[in-house]
């Protein structure tokens, strides 16, 4: 054991020495190969994208090997925390935009303020750049943004004689879903715990998940507006067989869609690609439309999701890690991200790349009205033990909405107001 420790220490010293003399440009070490670990979230980008990126990066930085590891969303906060606290963290980590603040505050993430200019940061999407900033310092580098649209099965719509383009309001939407939901077909696959979708409906009604007044947070799921949002969710959910006690990850809804008997699902356009991957017969048969709003003139409000990239303080190869971030956030791979995954690129000037990609137009239509979760570093704690999901399930399985909402609101308020030590 002692020997191990020694070996470790000397290895550490060696790498420190290496990175100290390595230039910030191109490959740091010309000698033995360096392994960089990159954590990417499950379903964020396709395997083929990652493979191409890794091959390209390794070619440009000879002697480097990229070990890209896919992480599950479940328990991710524990995982990232223990990684940040370790002495040899992964070199680059993808972090949900709402979660960067928490890690940045903890001091485990490298300050990249000095690189903002080089990365053309003046042009970043505010929805990604702002959460990545704490106390005027930039910790998270924007990677991509996406919001939810309705993905539909063209064949099933045709069979039911429904024109997707004509669905502009909630009423039309539920009517169509009800009509589609017959025989072996599910009108819409909406898992009971898709809380981001619910958030959109609540925002549409003028409600919110939590509001802050005078320094204290209050959960607001029990307000009449929010209850109306839930009511619509329940109606929509009933036009399919989405499990009432699970979210979109379990089972992965792309696979459910891939089974071919689901007329619609609500997801980022990229997920449709995963559905096609699981069932190639669906190639070209999936279409998109923005989530309908209350009236025809305005699409539904959506949660603006996305990811930032961070470099842990204890990364053994900070310079190479920065090269990875730079490449992923740079023009080439951003454009590729937009065209293959239909994500919104991290810079407004690149959004031209989205033209002509399926699903992107619909996503862009809704993006201006996009909203974020309540702006508190404690919000991740709410998500980690999500009372909104429990609330949804209770309502969908016949519980009293008002009292369930009240309880969930209290739970949210309590978590948000807990002092973070």
């Amino acid at each position, binding site marked *: 054991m002692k020997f191990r420790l020694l070996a470790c220490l000397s290895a550490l010293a060696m790498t420190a020495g290496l990175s100290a003399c390595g230039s910030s440009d191109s490959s740091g070490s010309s000698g033995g190969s360096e392994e960089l670990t990159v954590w990417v979230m499950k379903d964020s980008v396709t395997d083929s994208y990652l493979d191409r990126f890794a091959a390209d990066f390794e070619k440009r930085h000879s002697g480097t090997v990229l070990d890209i590891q896919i992480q599950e969303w479940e328990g991710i906060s524990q995982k990232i925390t223990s990684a940040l*606290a370790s002495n040899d963290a992964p070199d680059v980590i993808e972090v949900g935009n709402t979660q960067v603040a928490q890690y940045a505050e*903890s*001091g485990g993430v490298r300050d990249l303020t000095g690189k903002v200019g080089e990365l053309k940061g003046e042009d970043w999407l505010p929805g990604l750049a702002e959460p990545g900033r704490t106390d005027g310092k930039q910790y998270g580098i924007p990677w991509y943004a996406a919001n939810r649209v309705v993905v539909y099965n063209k064949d099933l719509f045709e069979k039911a004689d429904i024109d997707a383009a004509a669905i502009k309001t909630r009423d039309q939407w539920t009517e169509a879903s009800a009509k589609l939901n017959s025989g072996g077909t599910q009108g819409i696959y909406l898992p009971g715990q898709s809380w981001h979708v619910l958030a959109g409906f609540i925002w549409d009604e003028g409600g919110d998940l939590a509001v802050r007044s005078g320094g204290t947070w209050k959960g607001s799921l029990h307000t009449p507006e929010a209850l109306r949002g839930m009511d619509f969710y329940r109606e929509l959910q009933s036009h399919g067989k989405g*499990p009432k*006690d699970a979210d979109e990850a379990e089972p992965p809804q792309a696979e459910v869609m891939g089974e071919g008997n689901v007329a619609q699902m609500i997801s980022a356009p990229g997920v449709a690609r995963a559905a096609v991957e699981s069932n190639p017969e669906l190639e070209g048969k999936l279409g998109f439309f923005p989530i309908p709003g209350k009236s025809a003139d305005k699409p539904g409000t959506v949660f603006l999701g996305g990811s930032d990239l961070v470099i842990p303080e204890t990364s053994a190869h900070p310079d190479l890690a920065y090269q990875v971030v730079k490449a992923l956030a740079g023009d080439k791979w951003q454009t590729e991200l937009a065209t293959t995954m239909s994500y919104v690129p991290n810079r407004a000037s690149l959004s031209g790349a989205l033209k002509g990609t399926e699903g992107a137009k619909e996503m862009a239509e809704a993006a201006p009205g996009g909203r974020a979760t309540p702006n508190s570093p404690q919000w991740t704690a709410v998500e980690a*033990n999500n009372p909104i999901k*429990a609330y949804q399930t*209770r309502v969908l399985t016949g519980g009293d909405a008002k009292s369930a909402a009240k*309880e969930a609101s209290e739970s949210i308020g309590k978590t948000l107001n807990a002092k973070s030590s």
Partner: protein
Amino acid sequence: MTATVRKNPVVESPPRPPRRRPLPSVPRRIAGLWPYLLVAPTVLGAAFLLAYPVLRNLLISFQYFGMRELIRGGAGFAGWDNYREILGDTEFWEVVRRTFVWTAVNVVLIMVLATLVALMLQRLGRRMRMLVMSGLVLAWATPHIAATTVFQWLFQSQMGVVNWVLVRIGFDSFEGYTWFAHGNSTFAILVVLVVWQSVPFAAITLHAALVTVPEEIYESARTEGASAARIFRSLTLPMLRPIFGLVLCLEVIWVFRCFAQIWAVSQGGPNGATTTLPVYAFQVAQSLHRYDLAAAASTITVLLLVTVLIAYFRQMYKQEAEL
């Protein structure tokens, strides 16, 4: 140093027949060192991986220790703040209450069922007994995670076999019933799971204790006209008592501390309906990153468990004294 001052422990041993003479071939002092050498690895291991973590945990419970402190160090002293915070939290007391209910329900069910199964095993023919025992062993040996997965599959709402059977025998309301959406039904499933996993051990152990009673004693009691109930009360029960107590204590420990199954099935949900103390501590630490509060909660958990089991420890200690 101490070893030289101390009298040879062998010589010092209580007045028993002098079985163990010091070996003539080995110098006395070394012979006296032997037991210490033999337990040294245990003590060292326990110091590094048990005592030190427990102390560290205790220390954390008196510090402000969140994500920042875990990553960067430098935790400040908090005094009794964490204990005050957790003991003043109504949710905590709710969890404590639930933990006791959880333990009581499970342990009672386990002990009653196990005793009945053990008594049944005793009356079965040899072949049938082996068959049932094999079945019990099968259930016992199934790893927790595998068992948990199987139970989730059994109770699955759409294709689960339990719903199908319930609908088939006339409970139509169970068509597509989502078991894991309701607090009470999730709690019930977890109880079934834990009882299913625990009864075999208890039953087999109790049965083994039962068969140590010579059959002749039962025979003579029967010929003397004792009723079955009486035989059970005044013969079987006293015979079972010590082992029954031991199994009971082990089950209390295991059920009280049960974590993996609950976490895998429900993560303490829905709506906290299955959050017992270990789950609570885990949530506070891993979701809220309040390691200090979690440490305080687990310290309290240990104190509670030890209080419950104090009788067990006392007896263990007494038995040792007699040996």
